[in-house]
């Protein structure tokens, strides 16, 4: 504590010395806005925030404004707005007061700037508090990842590689190609809605269904396509989630928990699907 006080005292002397030597103070601080500048001027003069104090620092404020490096117009206008108020206040302080009437409202205008500046000062102090906390480096950390949960995939899917999946699909397609030679009853057609319902029913009794299993049940090329389509449609409508743990790995279909009840509650979704097919 003592140490830091000594340091600041030395720094103060050094700053004063520089100012005396060079004859002027170099502006090193970038002001955060007109109120920031105004507050600094008042504090430098060790004044309380009053209309009189504002009038006293008006010239310095305008002086700074004239040397203000070119900034964007919005920021400049903020500085000018305060400058206009300052000039008004100064004229009020210097000139004999006109009687009542117009004076009432003007008085409030000046008080308004005083109040704003006082309020601003307390937030600037609060910012200082935050800065101290940052400098002290007292941060804390929370947990950012959940504990590793046991895999919810069925064990039979474990160790399934890309090659195995592709092979399964090809084998299936090859079988179907052979089957197709045989005459089939035309009633075996499967619609998009039927497939979607199948997936839905499946997911009601189980937490997840593997895409591979669904394909395996398909008895024709057409059905494979419809199954794939149904999965895409359900996914597009956010009824299900698709998860693939690794590139080309098995795809697991799950019902989205937040739409659990929505499935039943929206019969029109089904008719929407029917319209598609």
């Amino acid at each position, binding site marked *: 504590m003592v140490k830091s006080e000594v340091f600041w005292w030395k720094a103060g002397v050094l700053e004063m010395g520089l100012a005396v030597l060079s004859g002027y103070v170099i502006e090193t601080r*970038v002001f*955060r*806005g*007109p*109120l*920031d500048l105004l507050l600094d001027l008042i504090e430098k003069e060790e004044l309380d925030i009053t209309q009189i104090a504002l009038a006293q620092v008006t010239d310095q404020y305008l002086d700074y404004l004239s040397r203000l490096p070119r900034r964007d117009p*919005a*920021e400049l206008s*903020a500085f000018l*707005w*305060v400058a206009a108020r300052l000039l008004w206040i100064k004229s009020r302080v210097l000139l004999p007061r006109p009687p009542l009437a117009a004076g009432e409202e003007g008085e*409030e*205008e000046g*008080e*308004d700037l005083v*109040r*704003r500046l*006082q*309020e*601003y*000062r*307390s*937030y*600037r*102090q*609060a*910012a200082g*508090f*935050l*800065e101290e*906390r*940052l400098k*002290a*480096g*007292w*941060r*804390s*950390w*929370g*947990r*950012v*990842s*959940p*504990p590793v949960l046991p895999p919810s995939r069925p064990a039979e899917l474990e160790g399934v590689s890309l090659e195995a999946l592709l092979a399964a699909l090809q084998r299936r397609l090859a079988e179907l190609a052979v089957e197709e030679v045989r005459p089939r009853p035309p009633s075996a057609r499967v619609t998009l809605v039927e497939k979607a319902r199948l997936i839905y029913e499946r997911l009601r009794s189980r937490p997840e269904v593997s895409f591979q299993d669904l394909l395996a049940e398909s008895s024709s090329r057409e059905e494979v396509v419809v199954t794939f389509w149904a999965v895409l449609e359900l996914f597009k409508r956010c009824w299900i989630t698709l998860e693939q743990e690794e590139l080309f790995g098995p795809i697991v279909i799950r019902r989205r928990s937040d739409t659990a009840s929505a499935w039943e509650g929206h019969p029109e979704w089904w008719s929407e699907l029917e319209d598609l097919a």
Partner: protein
Amino acid sequence: MRTLLEALLFVAAEPVSVSELAQALEREEAEVAAALEEWAAEQAGRGLRLLRLGNRVQLASAPEAAPYIERFLGLHRPARLSAAALETLAIIAYRQPITRAAIEALRGVDCSGTLHTLLNLGLIEERGRAPSPGRPILYGTTFDFLRHFGLQSLEELPPLDLPEAGPEEPGG
């Protein structure tokens, strides 16, 4: 109850609401809230602290441990915040939820760039919209804010030295 709360918060990956805790423990929310409060009050000198924001809580490391944690995890000190960012952050911390216009009225300058930076840093977040015309976005501070400044809750901010309320603002 405290034992269970500690265990639940240890396995939670993100801030948890009091109601979620109450549900898991099959207790009344008020009861859980009271237990949390009591626990937080007795944590001084412990390695873990309970952070509170609104009705959510999170377990975090004690701020005093920061230098050691940084060394342990090989972390760098965070980048410094600009004076304008700190000022904006202070206003939001005390006055949340607050609109951009209200922040700008207090600071006297445009704050859109600063707000953008603070949002990107995750120190503030959108908190819905004000019912006033144009339905402007409201901003509030996050758990990241508490952790960044080593605070347990917003109540740890020092009281604001505000001027006495003057006459009503013109037109307000």
